[in-house]
């Protein structure tokens, strides 16, 4: 798909969020404490906060260039339904932002001295939670893309909406670290993702039309 090709042409833009993700996570121990038991307690929370912030950072590019060069207008009046185009863009965006986050996440788990068994759970929780983040964030982007400095506004809009994902994502890792059952939070994340991925494209398409008027 076109967006993947584009992403490949400007790799640096997509590397930044990943470096950001790792940096935030690396800063916490320096500022708080490096005692292993503290790290283990902080780990799951920091992991997900870093993931959410990194996602918001990358979100802004989702519609920016298409809006600036008029491509979005063309998509809006194409015979192809806008929501389908949006869904394709979301998928491409998820592949270039969330997937790399998942791949580097084991590094972070080890950094926080969490048991190795949580690595799989952390990746699973990202896989289950990031579709919600991408889809919900895209709605925020669709509403703010016409604003000159939409970045801060975007964070204000979407960060509160990420709270459920943050809670369930962090608790999944936390429970795994304590050898407790993890299905509950993971299933919640999956449910949220299914809901947002199936409904958001229509909302995003509607928001984009309002933005383009």
């Amino acid at each position: 798909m076109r967006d993947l090709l584009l992403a490949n042409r400007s790799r640096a833009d997509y590397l930044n969020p990943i470096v950001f993700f790792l940096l935030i996570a690396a800063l916490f121990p320096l500022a708080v404490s490096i005692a292993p038991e503290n790290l283990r307690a902080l780990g799951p929370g920091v992991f997900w906060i870093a993931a959410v912030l990194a996602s918001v950072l990358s979100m802004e590019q989702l519609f920016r260039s298409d809006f600036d060069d008029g491509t979005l207008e063309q998509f809006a009046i194409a015979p192809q339904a806008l929501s389908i185009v949006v869904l394709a863009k979301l998928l491409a965006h998820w592949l270039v932002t969330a997937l790399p986050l998942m791949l580097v996440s084991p590094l972070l788990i080890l950094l926080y001295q969490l048991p190795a068994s949580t690595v799989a759970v952390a990746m699973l929780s990202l896989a289950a939670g990031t579709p919600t983040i991408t889809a919900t964030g895209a709605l925020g982007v669709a509403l703010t893309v016409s604003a000159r400095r939409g970045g801060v506004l975007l964070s204000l809009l979407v960060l509160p909406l990420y709270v459920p994902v943050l809670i369930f994502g962090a608790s999944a890792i936390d429970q795994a670290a304590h050898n407790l059952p993890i299905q509950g939070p993971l299933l919640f994340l999956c449910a949220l993702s299914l809901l947002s991925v199936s409904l958001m494209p229509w909302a995003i398409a509607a928001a984009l039309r309002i933005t383009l008027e």
Partner: protein
Amino acid sequence: MLQVEQLAISRGERILATDLGFQVGPGEALVAEGPNGSGKTTLLRTLATLSPPSGGTIYWQGQPIAEVTEAYRGEMLFLGHNPAIKLDLTPMENLKVYARLGGAVTEPIAALEGMGIRRYAATRCRHLSAGQLRRVALARLILTAAPLWILDEPFTALDRQTIDGLSSLLEEHLAEGGSAIITTHQPLSLGQARVSRLPLGGG
């Protein structure tokens, strides 16, 4: 055929024109004229279903376009100020995207050939000049068979030769029974085609 009745257009709070009425039939072209800021672009965006009209109705083949939006969009091609071309892709890749979006009747390479930029098919658009970029955008006119063309300042940044090329493309389109709505500041010669003019108010 496009028919417009009592159309009112506005940009933000400002009303640009009211009670516009015209029709554009097969083989006819309409040229919207007026000074900067008189609402030419807004009119075109309204006709392209990007902005809703603030009053009045637009009919396509006798039906209000609000009711046949999907079908109307399939038969209309709008080229705005922005070229809608991705600079990091090649002209070929850009056209393939639009071919996928629907309505392509020509191979992308043939469309580029038609605009005389086949040579640059595999060059990144970032390295093309403004005029070449416009030609990539205009190649979409050849790519699809939309009966209605809505062109906002299509002659901007084009050299003499390409202007002639585009003019004959327009003539051909009209001769085949297509319609076109155009804004331009350039004198337009379209041979035998029926060209009507729509003056838009001075402010």
